[in-house]
């Protein structure tokens, strides 16, 4: 770009320290990795969804038309039947289902035996009824299953709401609920039956006209909710008091404080802060940068090459980032050059071996005294 007239020459660039750049790099690297992981996970999920849909379509049983007056008997495999109005029925093996009526106002099935699942098209203007023995299930728009083995009838609701009627008794079942009527009640269960059960009229098909209390099965989510601990549910044991803790300083706090101290010219305080970070939290992301900043201060402002060398050696112990290792080796060469020519040449050789095309090659090559 070639500016014609520019105010930019009067705008100062903010100073970005090496340590701040390294911290920034950590954050950028973390976000790039996360982005890739999310992308990979999204691709896998999309592939699974596509595979599932394809498999579902491939395995889907062909839908047979089902008209009023017809009887569908499933022998060894289930049968999928479709009504002209859009609802779908799956009759399980061994099941027998009759479509007694199907017009704009009412659809009536008679389940003679076995199991049938219904996926009902929502249509408020018509009644949708499944009769199984004396039990009648009414729905508006939902998905549910009715099973009949002789006088025993079970109703399970997968979606929406259904009404189960038996004589004058009406029960509403919502998604996830299950209702069972069995033919042969245990004697003691009569005593447990509620008034409603006792008052209901006998069914002509049952030798013992007693309906069991319905077996309501809660949805899996509710069922799996773990029991709350006694202390939180009014139990006798009170919860132990929370420990009184004061906010612990983090390496980030120490690092920021040390950077502030350095910016304010309080170099010794800054050095102490950086030392604390790399000694107290050696595995934190701030430790290698702290050791490096400590070395820079010791060398550049305190004029203490021995302390600086210790700091840069510490940086090399802690650092995993190649660029920080490169910088630390270069500065370590510089520190040793001031008091230990042998160590200087050793570190110089190490730098040139590891970073032959590094950005400090020229300075490192000239650093050591002859």
């Amino acid at each position, binding site marked *: 770009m070639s500016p014609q007239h520019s105010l930019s020459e009067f705008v100062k660039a903010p100073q970005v320290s090496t340590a701040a750049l390294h911290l920034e*790099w950590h954050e950028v690297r973390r976000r790039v990795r996360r982005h890739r992981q999310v992308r990979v996970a999204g691709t896998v999920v999309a592939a699974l969804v596509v595979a599932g849909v394809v498999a579902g379509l491939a395995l889907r049983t062909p839908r047979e038309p089902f008209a009023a007056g017809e009887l569908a008997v499933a022998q060894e495999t289930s049968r999928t039947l479709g009504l002209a109005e859009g609802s779908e029925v799956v009759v399980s093996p061994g099941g027998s289902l009759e479509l007694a009526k199907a017009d704009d106002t009412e659809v009536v099935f008679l389940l003679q035996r076995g199991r049938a699942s219904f996926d009902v098209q929502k249509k408020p203007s018509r009644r949708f009824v499944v009769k199984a023995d004396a039990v009648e299930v009414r729905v508006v728009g939902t998905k549910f299953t009715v099973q009949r083995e002789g006088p025993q009838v079970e109703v399970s609701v997968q979606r929406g709401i259904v009404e189960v009627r038996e004589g004058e008794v009406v029960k509403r079942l919502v998604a996830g609920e299950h209702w069972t009527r069995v033919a042969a009640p245990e004697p003691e269960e009569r005593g447990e039956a509620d008034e409603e059960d006792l008052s209901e009229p006998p069914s002509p098909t049952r030798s013992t006209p007693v309906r069991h209390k319905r077996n309501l099965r809660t949805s899996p989510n509710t069922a799996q909710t773990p029991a709350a601990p006694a202390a939180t549910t009014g139990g006798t044991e009170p919860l132990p008091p929370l420990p009184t803790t004061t906010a612990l300083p983090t390496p980030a706090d120490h690092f920021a404080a040390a950077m502030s101290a350095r910016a304010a010219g309080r170099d010794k305080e800054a050095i102490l802060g950086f030392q604390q970070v790399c000694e107290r939290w050696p595995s934190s992301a701030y430790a290698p940068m702290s050791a490096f900043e400590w070395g820079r201060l010791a060398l550049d402002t305190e004029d203490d090459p021995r302390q600086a060398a210790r700091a840069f050696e510490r940086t090399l112990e802690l650092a995993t980032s190649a660029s920080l290792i490169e910088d630390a080796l270069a500065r370590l060469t510089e520190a040793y050059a001031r008091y230990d020519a042998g160590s200087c040449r050793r570190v110089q050789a190490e730098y040139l071996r590891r970073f032959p095309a590094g950005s400090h090659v020229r300075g490192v090559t000239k650093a050591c005294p002859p």
Partner: protein
Amino acid sequence: VESPNAETTLVRAAIQGDAEALEQLFLRCAADLTAWVSRVVLGSADAQDIVQDTFVAAFTRLKTLRQPEAFRGWLRTIALTQVRRRFRKQRLLRRLGFADVEPVELESMVSEDAPPEVVTELRQVAGLLRKLPADEALALVLRRVEGYRLEEIAEQLGLSLATVKRRLAAAEQRFQALQEVQ
């Protein structure tokens, strides 16, 4: 002084998936980009976030870069997209009443030897940046602060020359009006 060839080599290595090359590229380019973005948004507060967003966006679609030698220009184009997005978001939040126009702290950014008229102009541009539509604001700052030619602005913003002229004219009109008021 960095060698352009060395940087292109790094970009090629990074495209091939070399993690160290990515880090080297960031460390080589981040300070310059931060300085440039700070001038474009006339404030350093947002610059760091924008630079970080820019590198994340760049490194996650590095394979789409056709010319490795144009890496820095490509970074600036992505950075401008991030700046534009930020300007739009801030403007929307202000319109919805969720944010106020933040005062611009120019003192720390203007060099001590800047003539008073330059300081005044910078302050006016910075004030307008927060009020103009994003593309007008960017066209204005690239022209007034960075001194780009119209063709360069069009290229950087991915707009036609005619559109840049139109937006710049609208921005300049408001800028002149502001100068007359003051």
